């Protein structure tokens, strides 16, 4: 069934798209990037990072572009001063939550968090850093989990459960004490459910999940491979 074409306005510009797409997709089709971290092509969106919030006018609440479907005649604002300020605060908050020491991180230069901070002009953080004492899981042969860099985007959780079907990862606890865990919060190597496929590593936007043996700046994620795999799987289903 051919999808119905509709038009919406994004930051004043008339954009033609099809029904069923999200605002994020429609904007990208039109060459406009809305910042996001928890979104990854091929995975179900969860609307958790709140970076892609857009203003749909009418004084209503802001809506996440990744989970809000387009509607005929919609007027979307993606870059008002308020939205930009909020996005910067979100990045500031993420930077203080864990120990993001870019200079010694394997993902330095290839990190989505670092890149967004740079793109949005976050040059300092006004909130005090938490400096939590977090472990590094080196138990596995090929991969590393560094909790210090995790932003709880749950891309790994979703890719593992939905694409690989293993559901090794989940999040324990709640609030600021939420942590990524494998199986019963045990060393990754002892998690029997893991297939060693590495999709989680390639999906991770930061240096939290990385290949072992990579030095600073060496970890480049092949996110597109995972996206392809996810889309292949979806096509089969």
């Amino acid at each position, binding site marked *: 069934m051919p999808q119905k074409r509709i038009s919406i306005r994004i930051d004043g510009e008339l954009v033609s798209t099809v029904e069923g797409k999200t605002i994020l997709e429609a904007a990208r089709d039109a060459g406009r990037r809305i910042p996001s971290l928890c979104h990854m092509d091929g995975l179900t969106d969860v609307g958790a990072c709140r970076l892609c919030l857009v203003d749909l006018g009418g004084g209503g609440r802001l809506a996440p572009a990744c989970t809000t479907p387009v509607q005929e005649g919609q007027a979307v604002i993606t870059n008002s001063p308020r939205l930009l300020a909020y996005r910067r605060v979100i990045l500031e908050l993420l930077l203080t939550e864990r*120990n993001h*020491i870019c200079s010694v991180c394997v993902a330095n230069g290839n990190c989505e968090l670092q890149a967004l901070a740079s793109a949005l002009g976050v040059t300092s953080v006004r909130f005090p850093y938490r*400096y939590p004492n977090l472990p590094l899981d080196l138990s596995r042969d090929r991969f590393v989990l560094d909790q210090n860099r995790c932003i709880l985007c749950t891309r790994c959780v979703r890719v593992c459960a939905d694409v690989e079907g293993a559901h090794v990862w989940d999040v324990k606890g709640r609030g600021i004490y939420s942590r990524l865990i494998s199986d019963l919060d045990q060393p990754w190597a002892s998690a029997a459910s893991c297939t060693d496929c590495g999709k989680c590593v390639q999906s991770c936007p930061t240096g939290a999940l990385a290949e072992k043996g990579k030095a600073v700046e060496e970890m480049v994620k092949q996110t597109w491979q995972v996206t392809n795999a996810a889309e292949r799987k979806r096509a089969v289903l």
Partner: protein
Amino acid sequence: MIAAGEKIKLATVWLDGCSGCHMSILDLDEGILSVAERADLVYSPLVDTVEFPEGVDVALVEGAVSSLEDASKLQSVRARSRVLVALGDCAVTGNVPAMRNRLPVKQIMQRLYIEGADVNPGVPASGVPPLLAQARPLHEFVKVDFYLPGCPPDPKAILSVLTDVLAGRAPKLPAVKFG
């Protein structure tokens, strides 16, 4: 703000950092000449003034605040400078020096100077300034006017900031990144 055309007093300060940011200043190459034309370097690890002078126009501060000495030095730098720039990730975020923050100082000292010592185990007590419980960025202690992240910061960014300040403009930072 610095009035245009005036020869200014420039200072650079080295707190808890690796001096890499200072190296980056030296990496300004010929750019440094244009700065030298307009500025006197009145205090720096590169010159041998002991006391941080009064009436400094621009102070570039490298490093995190890790010890009581850093903290008090920073206070006087702030009191005596018109513009204070946090130079590099350690000054801006705490960076590598802050990696110790998750552990109590006592535990670190124990590990380093007692468990890790081959000869004469013992925590040095004299001649070293007492460490603060945590290494923290400059702005948690004093007002910072501009932030220049990077590890080290890009020399071009340093030059751009200095050029703007020397010209009496509010610096417009080129795209910079942490790390």
